């Protein structure tokens, strides 16, 4: 069954017809060409596919696209660009928190959701917020540094 939906994607209105069972990560990556959102497990366990829906960090691999009807969706492409990166993105680069980078878009967006609510988080709060985002490369030490540095800059 097809459904018509309208939502705000990266500050721009979008109208789409999607299948009822279509998953948001596939809509973003395959239909809209927004490949910055990564899919690493597809079962909601790793956080690589995180996007923000109305400011909340959600896993787009277990979210029906139809459910974002009427909402605001932010993907990594809407946060900043290479020419004009968001301070969190720049902080990840400066702290050396990016290795293979597959977890990075999800980490950055989860960090954004945290900092929007809690501008000066403690290490414990950062860990709590990022606990659902797996990274196999960094050991997380530099990711925590990056989030703290981004908080300071704000």
């Amino acid at each position, binding site marked *: 069954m097809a459904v018509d939906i309208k939502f705000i994607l990266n500050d721009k209105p979008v109208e789409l017809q999607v299948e009822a069972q279509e998953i948001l990560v596939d809509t973003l990556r395959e239909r809209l060409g927004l490949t910055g959102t990564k899919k690493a497990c597809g079962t909601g366990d790793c956080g690589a596919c995180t996007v923000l829906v109305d400011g909340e960090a959600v896993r787009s691999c277990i979210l029906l696209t139809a459910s974002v009807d009427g909402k605001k969706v932010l993907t990594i492409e809407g946060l900043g660009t290479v020419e004009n990166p968001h301070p969190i993105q720049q902080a990840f680069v400066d702290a050396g928190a990016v290795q*293979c980078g*597959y977890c990075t*878009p999800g980490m950055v967006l989860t960090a954004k959701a945290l900092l929007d609510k809690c501008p000066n988080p403690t*290490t414990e709060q*950062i860990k709590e917020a990022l606990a659902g985002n797996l990274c196999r490369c960094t*050991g*997380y030490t*530099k990711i925590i540094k990056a989030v703290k540095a981004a908080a300071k800059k704000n």
Partner: protein
Amino acid sequence: MKKGLRIVGRSVARAEALAKATGRARYTSDFKRGDMLVAKALWAKYPHALIKSIDTSAAEQLAGVAAVMTAKDLPGRNGYGIMVPDKPVIADGKTRYEGDPVALVAAVTEEIATKALELIKVEYEVLTAYDDPREAMKDDAVLIHPNHPAADKGNLLTVVKLDRGDVEKAFREADIVIENYYETPMVEHCYLEPDICIAEPDDLTGGLHLICAQQAVYATKRCLAPVFNLPHHKVRVSSPIVGGGFGGKEDSSLDVAAVAGVLALKTKKTVCFELTREEVFRTTGKRHATYIKHRMAATKEGKITAVDVETVLNKGAYTSMGGLREPAHAVTMRTAAYAAGVYAVASAKARSYSVFTNTPYSCAFRGFGVPQAIFAVECQIDELARRLNMDPIELRRKNILRDGDHTIYGQVMKESRGLGLEECMDKVRDSIGWDKPLAQSAGPVKRGRGFAVFMYGTGIPLLFEGASCFAVLNNDATLNVNIASTEMGQGVMTVMAQMAAEALGLNYEDVLVSFSDTGRAPDSGPTVGSRSTVMVGNAVLDACRQLKDRLLAFAAKPFKADPRDLAIEGGKIFVVGKPETAESLAALIAKAYASQVPLAATGVWYPPQPSFRAEDGQGEPMHAYAFGAHAIEISVDTETGVITVDRSVFACDVGKAINPAAVEGQMEGGAAQGIGWGVMEEQVMENGVMQNAAFHNYMIPTIKDLPDLESIIVEHPNELGPFGSKGIGEPPIIPAAPAIRNAVWDALGIKMNAIPLTARTVLAEIQKNGKA
């Protein structure tokens, strides 16, 4: 070591980091297009079985299916592998693990491909499936490879032997003998990017282009050309940036590329084959599980005199990095070679048995068997310290290999290659406050501290070893460097650019490194074995030196100076000591270009030829070693068995840190994986079927499982490494697990010799020992 370095030794930001952080960096799966065919594999229903019949007719009829293939439909050899072509593209008559494809499908959509798989009917005759190599090596075990060249040894693929000195005598005369049995688990690499290959038939050449996340583009081309029945020059293999590899994507990339490739040839269309996470768990290569019987002889003063070690390795279903020609087995060989760890031991006997089973094949995984071997040794020496009532660090100090000492495989240690272990030990000892006892509380939580060290010979001796690259100077004084190594997060683009810029006197931003494409670069060797910084780095320096020599020779005339008195720096060329003579390098290059000075060069480097005799495991297989020491503090909740790592202090001697932030990144990531290996990770198999094939039951460390990982860089330069470097990608994974095990003993007074030390195992041990 060179003085006055401008770019090498600085933590410049990674070349590609911003593109990754903004989601612009494209990985293989980001190149998928809607018009590509989607490939799916019908995996073996039974891990060990005979295939009686396959009926694909219904699947072939399904609308939208472009091809269905079974073993009889292949274009070339139905077998591939890094060392021995014993892994079939499609199982032919027999399955050996649950990752064997029985049939392949290409269809216009994933849904149709999945539906087609359901329509394929297969009849099996089920055989006994082995998870444990100790069972599979019994005389009456069913043969997993009845027609394998090694089949006369049953399921035993190979034995690596090492003999030195008079082991019997040393044990007879020993004051103390420590004997234990250790077990380490099979684990999955868990790179976040699932395996994928896009195979594109090239109508212009009649060849095939494989775009594939991987670590070894040239090996893929060599291994798979016979599968496609194509000459090597018509198989182009390239890899966009890779979302983590850790050794796994040297092998699993062959699996996906073989499938996508044969389907692309069959359909004459572009085909994409991407694994789901569950498929990555069930079908790709793993770290070898090991079972190690370790005997260590010592004097009462604490001098280790002999080791006698027997290691059984789970090879899994296929040879992978194993091999038939003994002792050329990257992993098996190292479990024997490192049987005495970092210690100078006069007499040694080691036997390592690699045995086929019906689990996923075991392949390269960060450290190539050294983590397993060192785990046993570092537990052994800790017990020796307890028995002798000596400080474990001081006991290690007494025994470590020093300049002029021989390893148990006969390699002479050389100060000139950098021997920084003792400095690592001292720095870690001071930083963690080793001499201050840990504060204990009265409650159920007990604290403990453990220590472990490692050494690791970088590179891949006994396989192809050496590297080449291309370098091209452009007329605007920028440089292209083309290497075939992979950028998988370790930072090879960055450190190669740093070294090239340093060597040629260019700005860092003016060097661009292209990577992983057999169509654009000569063979740099695989991106494994912590080898790229040294091997490929030396090749890049060689190319830069040639270009620089040509430019300086050409400049001698206009500058009216001896080439030796000229220097290039920051895009300018000048007479040393006379800054007023400076001219733009770009102008000079433009003149050189017009004057027939060649501005492209091929750089090459080969290390001293490695050796390791099959008869007794003696030789000089390594050219330089990285070293490290790791201290870990833990708490154990004696009511739940949960171990928490409270502190981790780690020092590594890397020779020279080309980019210190990147080195720390390797150390922190390695420590995290080592902690995971020690306390939580395990691929649980039951009759060849994986029981925990998802991230919610196969646990890897999350941000909450790790403390702040403290890293200390130590630099004892290696005369053979560029700027003194040694390579550090893999070894940081090695010492965490034994350090944790030693810390648990310290906390609870209980010895545990099998990892992972999960809450359940620890609690069971506590209860068994009546210490709750």
